[in-house]
């Protein structure tokens, strides 16, 4: 992982408050767990029916029946629980999930999220993303600021099919921490070495800049 990505993930880990129930989306969000202190009180949830996700295991120590929603062989910790898929999403939809960190193809300045389908190119199905994005108490996106071609992911409006409308509260990217506010995107923090002009250029929508000093991460 690049240094910028690594710092972004470490910064996102501070989003997690003690006592929360948290679902970390497949990919980068899963890495957030590596930046939490060993005795940090948190409950990690996996859609396939697990609370209390323990460390990922190498193949030779893996339990063939114990994976997370991304297919990684994980482990339990004292107090882990297994349950069925209906109960798992009951937890998501009934407000018991304090936070989800998700990846994104596009995020709009009104909080719209597109992260599951690129018509004609990528349509593997929505999985659990739609319920996480609709019902987690707080939806936060963790993503590179631009896609692989350098196109901005933070936009005035999403062009791809939506996962959820107006649900994203904050974006952690390799360039900045950006909140979604009633007035649109608002810069909160800048990654070390990123200039305001570079950020503006990489962002596909207006971004409010605070008058005070901008913290870096």
């Amino acid at each position, binding site marked *: 992982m690049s240094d910028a990505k690594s710092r972004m993930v470490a910064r996102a880990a501070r989003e997690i408050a003690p006592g929360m129930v948290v679902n970390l989306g497949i990919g980068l969000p899963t890495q957030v767990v590596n930046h939490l202190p060993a005795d940090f009180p*948190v*409950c990690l949830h996996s859609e396939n029916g697990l609370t209390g996700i323990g460390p990922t295991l190498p193949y030779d120590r893996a339990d063939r029946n114990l994976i997370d929603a991304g297919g990684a062989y994980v482990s339990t910790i004292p107090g882990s629980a297994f349950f069925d898929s*209906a109960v798992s*999403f*009951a*937890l998501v*939809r009934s*407000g018991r999930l304090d936070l989800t960190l998700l990846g994104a193809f596009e995020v709009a300045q009104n909080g719209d999220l597109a992260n599951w389908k690129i018509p004609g190119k990528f349509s593997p199905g929505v999985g659990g993303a739609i319920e996480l994005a609709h019902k987690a108490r707080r939806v936060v996106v963790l993503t590179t600021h631009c896609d692989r071609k350098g196109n901005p992911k933070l936009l005035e409006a999403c062009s791809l099919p939506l996962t959820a409308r107006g649900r994203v509260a904050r974006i952690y990217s390799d360039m900045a921490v950006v909140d979604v506010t009633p007035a649109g995107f608002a810069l909160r923090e800048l990654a070390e070495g990123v200039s305001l002009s570079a950020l503006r250029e990489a962002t596909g929508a207006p971004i409010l800049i605070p008058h005070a000093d901008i913290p870096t991460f």
Partner: protein
Amino acid sequence: MKLPDKTAALEDMIATIPDGATVLVGGFGVPGTPFALLQELARQGQRDLVVVKNDANEAGMGIDHLIANGQVRKLIVTHLGLNANAIAAMNAGAIEVEFCAQGILAERIRAGGAGLGAILTDIGLGTEMAQGKQQVEMAGRTMLVEPALRGDVALIHAASADPFGNLTYAATARNFNPVMAMAATRVIAETEVLVPLGGVAPDAVATPGAFVDHVVTLSALSQEYGIVRR
């Protein structure tokens, strides 16, 4: 990482319940009824409560204390047959009573716990249980809309619990407890035994702790928990 500790004092947790709260109460007859939580609720005296429970217990037990104290504005139950006091209070107009079919009550609460809006069912069609209920045509069939039901608080009785709130139940004391434990803003579980984290095997968890807010350990079981000789 470790799982958060939710152990708390019984009196403090009951004190969080305001007047006017909707309270889900586990139990079917004696088994699974959280008598200690109910005794404290009766002692503290919160009023205007809406109580959701399978039954009204028997005279002198469980939610009958709340009814006798005049703390209950409305009961949502499946039957009152074993509690003459509750029937008298209903007939006198002292409490409002909404009757639900037993499995439909369970499903309405479960729907609340599952973040659904309602279930559609044909149970009750052709009977007075259908009166006043919204109907929907679906693929040529008429269905009743049974809205999801949630509580401000759920009072749960567990056989064992760990500090995170992973719960097990004993025998038929399970009944409404698992669905109610999913369906309230604040879930308070009393437990006969508190085990350390890891003391409930992950496969043996009946209610995952992520649904539970507070765990209170019972130091002793009152007479109400015992065998009822009729």
